[in-house]
C-alpha cells in the first residue's frame, strides 16, 4: 500500500490522468470525443451569454412601448403553449436519436430525427406566422423599442432553430452516406447538445417574454 503510494508521483488532481500505463483509457490524454464535446459545450455557453445580452435589452425595453401595443395585448399564450410543446417533444425525440445512435440502429435514428425535424418545423411555422401577423397589424420591429427587442430576441432564437433544422437534415444525409463512423458519432453528439441547449433558451424565452409580460 505505502510502497505504491510512494512510487506514484504526487498528482492529486490527476493532471497526468493516472499515467500508470496499464490503466487503459484512463491514462494519457482524454479521448477525442470528450474534447470535441467539451469545446462545443463552451461554444454553447458563449451562445447563451450572447442570448443573455438580448434578454437584458428586452427586460430593459419591455415597458418602452411608445404608446403602441403592450405584450399583454399582442401575445397569444395558447399558441406559445403549442410552440413550447413542439420544442419540448422534439428535444425528447432528439434524445431518442441519441439512444438509437448508441445502439447503432439506423432505422430508429432516421425515425427519431424525422420526428425531431417535423416538430421543429411546426415550431418555426408557428413563430413565423406570429411574426407575420404582428407585422401585418402594423406592430413590426420598427413600431416601438419593446417590439424591436422582442423581434431581436425571439427572432434570434428562431434563427438558431432554423440553422439547427438544416444541421439535422445534414446529419441524416451524412449518416445515410457514411454510417455511424467515429466522426459522425461526434457530430451527432454535438447536434444533440445544440438542440437541447436551444430548448433551454426557449424555457427562458417563454417565461420572460411571454408569461411575465403577457399574463392577464
Amino acid at each position: 500500500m505505502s510502497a505504491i503510494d510512494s512510487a506514484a508521483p504526487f498528482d492529486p488532481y490527476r493532471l497526468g490522468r493516472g499515467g500508470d500505463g496499464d490503466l487503459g483509457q484512463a491514462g494519457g490524454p482524454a479521448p477525442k470525443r470528450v474534447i470535441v464535446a467539451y469545446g462545443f459545450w463552451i461554444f454553447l455557453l458563449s451562445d447563451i451569454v450572447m442570448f443573455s445580452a438580448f434578454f437584458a435589452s428586452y427586460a430593459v425595453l419591455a415597458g418602452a412601448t411608445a404608446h403602441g401595443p403592450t405584450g399583454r395585448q399582442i401575445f397569444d399564450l395558447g399558441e406559445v403553449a403549442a410552440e413550447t410543446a413542439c420544442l419540448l417533444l422534439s428535444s425528447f425525440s432528439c434524445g431518442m436519436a441519441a439512444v438509437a445512435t448508441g445502439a447503432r440502429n439506423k432505422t430508429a435514428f432516421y425515425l427519431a430525427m424525422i420526428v425531431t425535424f417535423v416538430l421543429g418545423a411546426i415550431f418555426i411555422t408557428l413563430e413565423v406566422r406570429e411574426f407575420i401577423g404582428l407585422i401585418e397589424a402594423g406592430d413590426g420591429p420598427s413600431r416601438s423599442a419593446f417590439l424591436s427587442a422582442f423581434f431581436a430576441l425571439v427572432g434570434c432564437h428562431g434563427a438558431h432553430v432554423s440553422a439547427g433544422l438544416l444541421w439535422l437534415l445534414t446529419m441524416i444525409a451524412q449518416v445515410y452516406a457514411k454510417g455511424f463512423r467515429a466522426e459522425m458519432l461526434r457530430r451527432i453528439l454535438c447536434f444533440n447538445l445544440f438542440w437541447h441547449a436551444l430548448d433551454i433558451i426557449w424555457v427562458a424565452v417563454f417565461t420572460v417574454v411571454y408569461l411575465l409580460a403577457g399574463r392577464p
Partner: protein
Amino acid sequence: MTEVLAQDNAHVADSAPGDERLDGSNVAQGIVGYLVGLALAAGLTAASFYLAAGHFLYGPSVPAALIALAVAQMGVHLVFFLHITTGPESTNNVLALAFGVLIVFLLLAGTLFIMTALHHNMPPMDKLMSMQR
C-alpha cells in the same frame, strides 16, 4: 491492487457533455432517463402556464414563482437531456457551466441595475425637452 486502481480511475474518467453515465448505460435505461426528463419538464411547463393564466397565486408573487419554475426546468434539461451531472467525471463541464452562469448573472443583474438607476434619475421626457429649449 492495480485492479482496484484501474477501476477507480475508470470511474473518474472524463465524460463528454451529453454522454450518458459511464456505468451500466443501455438502451432501456437511456429511454427511461429521457422519459423522466420529459415528464418533469412537461409538468414544470404546465405549472408555469397555469400560474401565469390563473389566479392560483397572490398576484405580485407570480413573477418570482415563474422564475423559480424556469430555473428548475433548466436544471431538469441539464441533468436529463444534456447529462451534466455532479459526478467527478464531468467536473470540467460543470466548471464551464458555472463560469457561464456567472457571466450571465453579471450581465443581466448589471444591466438591470444600471438601467433602472438611470431611469429613476432621468427627468420626464417633456421636462427634458423644455430644459433644452
